[in-house]
């Protein structure tokens, strides 16, 4: 009973805080100083049509590097916990009993997997022009892998390829950031490549390159997490 009263009191307090926030809310009539700087200078300084991409990859690029690192740690720890050595290069026990895949799922996945992959690549290759970017594109690529796994859980994936892609993209991201220190304004500055025409595919300097690397890295990480989770782990 006291526990109930305690929970109820907590909820009332939380509600009071939110109502106070709601009542004291007045919409801003103008952008604040930082936002105005980003909105006015992105197109001329960095050449990116999507301001969000410019903020994520260039102005706040170090934070993105941190995010990517956190994701890498998560994937590494998951693989460390779930990894079981089944012998020489085999990561699945073959011939495990499975109910047959439905016709709809099989046909649908054959049709949809290439389209989903294309959508993911489009999202991170056009991240500097349209909404989207490396994280979204990578997650969509991983969902294509998930569809393949749902269709046939016994499918084997080349896990070496996943980890190779992940490592190369991670190293590439850091190398581009360090190159920015020598050839442009600082770490992760995108002006080491020509900025080009605003709105073109090959513009905005290093932003599309970095976003492609992030997309490949995130896609490979999520895919390897999914493959490891769906593996058969019983020692039967």
């Amino acid at each position: 009973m006291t526990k109930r009263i305690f929970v109820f009191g907590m909820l009332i307090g939380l509600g009071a805080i939110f109502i106070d926030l709601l009542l004291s809310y007045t919409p801003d009539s103008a952008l604040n100083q930082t936002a105005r700087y980003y909105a006015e200078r992105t197109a001329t300084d960095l050449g990116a049509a999507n301001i969000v991409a410019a903020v994520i990859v260039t102005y706040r690029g170090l934070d993105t590097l941190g995010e990517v690192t956190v994701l890498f740690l998560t994937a590494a720890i998951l693989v460390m916990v779930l990894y079981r050595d089944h012998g020489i290069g085999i990561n699945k026990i073959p011939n495990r009993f499975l109910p047959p895949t439905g016709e709809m799922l099989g046909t649908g996945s054959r049709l949809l997997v290439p389209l989903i992959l294309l959508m993911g690549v489009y999202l991170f290759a056009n991240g500097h022009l349209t909404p989207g970017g490396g994280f979204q594109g990578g997650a969509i690529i991983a969902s294509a892998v998930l569809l393949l796994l749902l269709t046939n859980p016994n499918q084997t994936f080349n896990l070496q390829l996943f980890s190779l892609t992940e490592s190369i993209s991670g190293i590439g991201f850091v190398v581009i950031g360090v190159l920015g220190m020598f050839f442009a304004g600082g770490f992760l500055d995108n002006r080491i490549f020509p900025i080009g025409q605003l709105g073109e595919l090959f513009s905005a300097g290093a932003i599309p390159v970095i976003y492609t690397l992030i997309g490949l890295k995130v896609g490979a990480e999520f895919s390897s997490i999914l493959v490891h989770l769906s593996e058969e782990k019983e020692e039967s």
Partner: protein
Amino acid sequence: MSGLLSFMSFVICVALVGAAWVAIRSTSLPMAILAAGLVSLLASLMFLILAAPDVAMTEAAIGCGLTTFLFFFVLGRVRGGEHD
């Protein structure tokens, strides 16, 4: 925000809270997982209405897609304990 848009966001918010309630109180686990996925889907719609398409995409791909299927993977693994 125009009248129709604020009406739509009101409906979405009510549905969001309802789906969250179902996710917590439902006795069947698949139902709860689907309701949690629905919360993410409605949240991504809200992000889209509030003019944040980048966040909406992330929410739809990770919150609604990958997490829901991850829960189903785990549910299948836990359930299939007898003869898997």
